[in-house]
């Protein structure tokens, strides 16, 4: 009890933020899993980090660029300065999604092969960017890049709340298009829906969501919560709405429990969140296997 009250006292936003991040990843994970492009989640988390690493190079003066676009003079703007990592993280993720969305047209490489190539490239350029970064030590930047649930403060919490709001809105308003194009894109096109455009829209949305969430909770947490809650939802849900509800509940409940466990047994929060979610997954899978 003492540990719980200590945790709530010290990290209130981290607890609430981890719940929001879990729900967001649960939602987005259903799309990624149903499209059988789970690896895209891993790629986007790495690409987002590479984008943040790129921002540390300061090759492009973000503030100057924004001001020059609006024809005004440069003054020190902390908001723009701090937006740089998020901007480049998003830019890298969006570019990756745009490239990936065009790859279905070619028949030379498998989608897995393309994603694998982007994955290792993202890791490699991240290391190279960090090595050439003029601002700090490599290990220091690595920590910043990877994000940590415990570093979630008020600003990060409200940002996650906004991401969740838009995720729920998009998945609700465009549920018709989402279900038809993910179920059978070819028929959706034949029946008059622009499947290519809708899929691009959903991929971009998921890319932006993953990129922003990764910044706050780290790549390990983001990727794990893209897969595990949605997989548990698919394992247990007998209706589509049940899959969503289960993924959301798992995404919401497991992160604070894992934070408690990490705090209690002195582990890093991200890996503990993954280990806890995986334990639940294993348990459910086992029960399902025995019962069927």
């Amino acid at each position, binding site marked *: 009890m003492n540990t719980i009250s200590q945790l709530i006292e010290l990290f209130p936003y981290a607890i609430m933020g981890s719940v929001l991040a879990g729900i967001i990843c649960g939602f987005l994970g*259903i799309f990624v*899993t*149903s499209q*059988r492009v789970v690896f895209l989640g891993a790629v986007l988390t790495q690409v987002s980090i590479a984008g943040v690493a790129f921002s540390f190079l300061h090759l492009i003066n973000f503030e100057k660029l924004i001001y020059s676009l609006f024809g005004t003079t440069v003054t020190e703007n902390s908001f723009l300065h701090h937006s740089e990592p998020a901007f480049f993280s998003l830019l890298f993720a969006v570019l990756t999604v745009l490239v990936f969305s065009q790859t279905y047209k070619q028949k030379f490489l498998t989608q897995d092969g393309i994603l694998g190539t982007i994955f290792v490239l993202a890791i490699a350029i991240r290391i190279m960017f960090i090595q050439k970064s003029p601002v700090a030590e490599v290990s220091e930047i690595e920590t910043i890049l990877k994000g940590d649930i415990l570093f979630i403060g008020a600003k990060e919490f409200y940002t996650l709340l906004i991401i969740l709001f838009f995720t729920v809105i998009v998945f609700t*308003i465009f549920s*018709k*298009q989402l*279900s*038809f194009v*993910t*179920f*059978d894109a*070819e*028929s*959706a*096109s*034949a*029946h*008059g*829906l622009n499947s290519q455009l809708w899929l691009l829209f959903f991929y971009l949305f998921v890319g932006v969501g993953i990129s922003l969430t990764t910044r706050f909770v780290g790549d390990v947490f983001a990727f794990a919560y893209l897969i595990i809650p949605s997989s548990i939802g*698919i394992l247990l*849900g*007998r*209706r*589509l709405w*049940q*899959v969503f509800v289960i993924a959301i509940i798992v995404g919401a409940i497991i992160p604070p429990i894992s934070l408690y466990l990490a705090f209690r047994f002195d582990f890093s929060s991200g890996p503990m969140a993954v280990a806890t979610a995986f334990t639940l997954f294993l348990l459910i899978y086992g029960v399902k296997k025995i019962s069927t």
Partner: protein
Amino acid sequence: MNKEIVKLKDVSIGYGKNVIISGINLTIYDNDFIGIVGPNGAGKTTLLKTLLGSLKPLAGKIEKASLRFGYVPQRDIVQPLLPYTVYDVVMMGRFSLMKLFQYPGKTDKEIVEECLKSVGIYFLRHNNYNSLSGGQRQRTLIARALAVKPQILILDEPTNGMDTPSHYSLLDLIKELHDNQKLTVIIVSHLLSDVANITKKLILLERNFFQAGDIEDVLSEENLRKTYSSNFLVTKVDEEYVITSKHKEQQT
């Protein structure tokens, strides 16, 4: 003579620079029942996609009246991970007719139920699509295509991989939909005898060979030899076409 609804003039089909067949001239009339047959890779699905508008013709012109297509894809390409019910799947057919922010209403629900009944799977409406047999899945996809309230129903290899009873019962259903609902039906198959015995017109396809017309005009041993590069014997027994390989006949 029924109304012309689609006209292909000197059309070439294919992907990118790869022309599969050129010089296609074809007119589809209202209430036609057309079978498209040919060996694997002959361009059957490419022709379908061109008719649907998913692929642009590489050359030539396609004149279409304002048409609504109901499309039934090859069953194997639809392998959902998510647990959609039969009702959910059929309702998808209505989605394409709705505006961006419009949601299924009473009429849509009635149409979906009517389509489920017309293909004989109303009792399965709450079942998970993934739990269905091949024949039931195919009926679900047909019901979804009917939910569009189409003028033309297009089916791509509808009987592929089915057991014999499901196979013939599905062909009966397709024929019934054409006869009772006066639908224009285009069916693609690599099973020549299936198509020859239920459709009224036939399109024979092979790379750079295209022959279309009434069954009795097109279904000749000469045309089959050109299509399949093999000799066939076409006979009629009890008003049904029986197509056998001459090679087999020589053996017996």
